[in-house]
C-alpha cells in the first residue's frame, strides 16, 4: 500500500470513528438522562408520600384542652374525704364535670342539648380528675380551674383553625349548636391546643383523643428484641458454617437451595406455622411478642444468612491464606480475620432483615397480635401489638380523628426504623476497615 493510500484510509477511519463517537456520546447522554429522570421520579414520589403522611399526621401530636371551673366538693363527688385511692375510683367525676359544663352554659336546659354539651369533653377527663386528686388530696372541697381534654370532634375543628362563626363551612359531626358552644369557649380563651403527651404514654383506646402509640411501640421493641437475639446469632453461625467449613456436596447444595426458597415464602405462611407450632403445640402465650419474635426470626433468618454469606464470600481469600500460613486454626482464621472484615456486610443484611420484620403485619395477624391492647406490655409474654398492626387497626376505625393517628403511627414507625438504621450505620462505621 502506498503512503497516500494509507493516509486516505486512516483519515477515513477517523471520519468513521468520529461519526460513531457522536452516536456513542448521544447514547451516553440519553442513558444519564434516564437515570436522572428515574431518580427525580422516585424522589418526587417519596416527597409526595412523606408530605401526605406528615401533613395528615402532625395534628395528632397536639391535643385540645378546655378550661372549666370544676367544683370538687366531697358531696358532689359523692365520697368520704378520707377515702382510699381505690374508693376514689368510684367517685362521681363525670357528675362534677357535667355540673361544670352546665355552670359554664347555664342556658342549656333541654335533656338532649345537655347531652350534646357534655359530649364536648372527653371521657378521659374523668381519669384525669382522679389522677389529680390522688396526687393532691387538698383539691377535695375546692373550686378549681382545670384544663380538661376535649372530645376528638371538638379537637378536630379547633386544630383545623376553621372559622367557628360559620358552622356551615366546617366539615364535622358536631351540630351547629355544638359549634356555637365551641365558638363561645374559644372566644373566652377557654380552649387551648397543647402538645399531645397522651399519644406517647397511652395504649390503644376507643376514644381517639385517648389513644396512644406506646403499647404498639413497646410491642414492636420487644418483638424485634426477640427477633434479633434469635436470628442474628443463628443466621451468622449458619452462614459461617456453610461458607467456611461445610464440605461442598449434595447435602449442602440442598440446604442452600432451601434457604433461598425460604426467603421467598409468603410471610403469612410463617404466621400459620407459628400458630400451629408455637401456640397450639408448645402452648406459648397468644398475642405475645415472644411468639411474634420467633415467627419473625424464622422469616428474617434466610435474609441474614444470604447476605452474611455474600459478605463472607467477599472477603479476599488472600487474608485467609495469610492467617492460615501463620498457623491460625480454621476457627481463628474466621473469628480473627474473616468475620471482622465481613461484619459491615453482615450488619447491612441484618438491618434489612429487621426492617422487614418491623414492617411485617400478616404473620402477626395469625398469632393474635392484632388485639386491642390498652395496657402497655412490660415483658415479652404480655399481650401486645406492633406498630404496623396498630396502623392497620387505626386505619380501619370509623372515627375521623383516627385518620391523623394512623399517619402519626406511620411517622413513629418510620422514626423507629431510622433510629435502627442509624445504629446499624454507626456499628458499621466502627467495624469498617480497609484491606
Amino acid at each position: 500500500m502506498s503512503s497516500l493510500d494509507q493516509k486516505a484510509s486512516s483519515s477515513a477511519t477517523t471520519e468513521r470513528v468520529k461519526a460513531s463517537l457522536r452516536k456513542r456520546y448521544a447514547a451516553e447522554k440519553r442513558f444519564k438522562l434516564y437515570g436522572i429522570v428515574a431518580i427525580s421520579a422516585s424522589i418526587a414520589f417519596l416527597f409526595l408520600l412523606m408530605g401526605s403522611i406528615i401533613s395528615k399526621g402532625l395534628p395528632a401530636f397536639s391535643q385540645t384542652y378546655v378550661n372549666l371551673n370544676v367544683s370538687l366538693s366531697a358531696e358532689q363527688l359523692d365520697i368520704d374525704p378520707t377515702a382510699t385511692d381505690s374508693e376514689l375510683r368510684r367517685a362521681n367525676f363525670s357528675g362534677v364535670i357535667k355540673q361544670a359544663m352546665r355552670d359554664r352554659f347555664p342556658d342549656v336546659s333541654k335533656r338532649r342539648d345537655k347531652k350534646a354539651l357534655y359530649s364536648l369533653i372527653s371521657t378521659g377527663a374523668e381519669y384525669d380528675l382522679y389522677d389529680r386528686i390522688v396526687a393532691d388530696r387538698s383539691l377535695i372541697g375546692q373550686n378549681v380551674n382545670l384544663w380538661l381534654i376535649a372530645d376528638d370532634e371538638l379537637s378536630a375543628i379547633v386544630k383545623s383553625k376553621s372559622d367557628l362563626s360559620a358552622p356551615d363551612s366546617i366539615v364535622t359531626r358536631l351540630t351547629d349548636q355544638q359549634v356555637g358552644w365551641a365558638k363561645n369557649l374559644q372566644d373566652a380563651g377557654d380552649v387551648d391546643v397543647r402538645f399531645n403527651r397522651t399519644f406517647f404514654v397511652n395504649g390503644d383506646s376507643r376514644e381517639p383523643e385517648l389513644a396512644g402509640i406506646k403499647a404498639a411501640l413497646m410491642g414492636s421493641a420487644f418483638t424485634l428484641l426477640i427477633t434479633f437475639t434469635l436470628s442474628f446469632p443463628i443466621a451468622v453461625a449458619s452462614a459461617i458454617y456453610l461458607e467456611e467449613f461445610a464440605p461442598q456436596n449434595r447435602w449442602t447444595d440442598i440446604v442452600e437451595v432451601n434457604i433461598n426458597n425460604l426467603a421467598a415464602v409468603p410471610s403469612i405462611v410463617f404466621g400459620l406455622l407459628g400458630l400451629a407450632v408455637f401456640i397450639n403445640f408448645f402452648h406459648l402465650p397468644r398475642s405475645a411478642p415472644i411468639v411474634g419474635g420467633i415467627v419473625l426470626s424464622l422469616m428474617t433468618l434466610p435474609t441474614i444468612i444470604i447476605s452474611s454469606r455474600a459478605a463472607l464470600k467477599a472477603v479476599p481469600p488472600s487474608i485467609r491464606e495469610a492467617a492460615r500460613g501463620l498457623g491460625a486454626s480454621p476457627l481463628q482464621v474466621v473469628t480473627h480475620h474473616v468475620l471482622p472484615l465481613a461484619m459491615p456486610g453482615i450488619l447491612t443484611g441484618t438491618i434489612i432483615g429487621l426492617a422487614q420484620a418491623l414492617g411485617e403485619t400478616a404473620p402477626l395477624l395469625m398469632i393474635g397480635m392484632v388485639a386491642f391492647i390498652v395496657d402497655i406490655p412490660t415483658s415479652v409474654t404480655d399481650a401486645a401489638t406492633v406498630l404496623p398492626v396498630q396502623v392497620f387497626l387505626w386505619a380501619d376505625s370509623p372515627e375521623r380523628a383516627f385518620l391523623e393517628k394512623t399517619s402519626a403511627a406511620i411517622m413513629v414507625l418510620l422514626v423507629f426504623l431510622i433510629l435502627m438504621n442509624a445504629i446499624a450505620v454507626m456499628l458499621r462505621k466502627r467495624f469498617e476497615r480497609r484491606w
Partner: protein
Amino acid sequence: MPSSAQEAFDKLTHTVGTPTVDNAKMQTRNVNVFYGEKQAIYDVDLDIGQNEVIAMIGPSGCGKSTFLRCLNRMNDTIPSCRVTGQMSLDGEDLYGADLDPVLLRARVGMVFQKPNPFAKSIYDNVAYGPRIHGLAGNRAELDDIVVDSLRKAGLYDEVKDRLDAPGTSLSGGQQQRLCIARTIAVSPEVILMDEPCSALDPIATARIEELIDELRENFAIAIVTHSMQQAARVSQRCAYFHLGKLVEVDDTSTVFTNPQHELTENYITGRFG
C-alpha cells in the same frame, strides 16, 4: 515447544542433577499431586537443605507453586487436591495422621505473591502469630519479638514511629517486608516464598532479595520465582520444573552456566517460557 524439546520432555523419566542434599531440612520423595483427575505434579524428589535458598523456576503452570504449597499443606483447603508420595520435615511425615497442619504451618511459614497484610496495625500484624501461638509471656516479650522481626525484615527504621498505623497504609514493598516480618515473628524453620517480588518495583525487589540472603542464616528458604535473574541472585540451588515434572536441579551456578538438560537450557536462554 520445539518438537525436539517435546521429545526430550516425553523421554524424561528422572530428574537430572542432584535433588538430594546431606543436611536436608525437608525431603520429598515420589510426590504426585492431583487436582481431581488432572495430575499437576509427577514423581518429584527434592530436598531443601538447612540454611540454603532453593529457587524453583519454570514456565507458568509447571506446578512449582503447587509443589511449594504442598510443603506446608496450604492445598488442604482445595477439596479436589490429592497428594501421594512422601514429604517430611526433619523426618516427620507431613501428611501423616499424627501431624497437625496448624503446627506444621507454624514451623513452615509462607510469604505470598501479593502482599496481604491483615487489616490491623503494623504492630498487630507482626504480633498476630506470636499471640495465637502464645510465644510471648508478657507484653515486653511481645514487643521484643515484634521489633526484632521488623528489624530482621529491614522495615523497623521505616515504621518505628508509626507501629499503630494500619499495615495496609504501607507501600507495596513495605507491605511485603511486613508480611515477611510477620512470618519470621513465629520463628519458623522453613520459609516458603511464592513469587514474593512479582508485585513489586525493582528497588523494592532488591531490598527483598538482600533480605532473603540475610534470612538464610537462620532459615531454610524455598522461593518460587519467574525471574531467572532473581533465582541466580538469591539462591544456592535451583530447581527447574516443566509441566509438572522436576527436570533439573543443581547448584544455581551449574544450572545457569552449564545446564545438563535441553529443556533447562531452552528455558534459561529464553528460547521459550
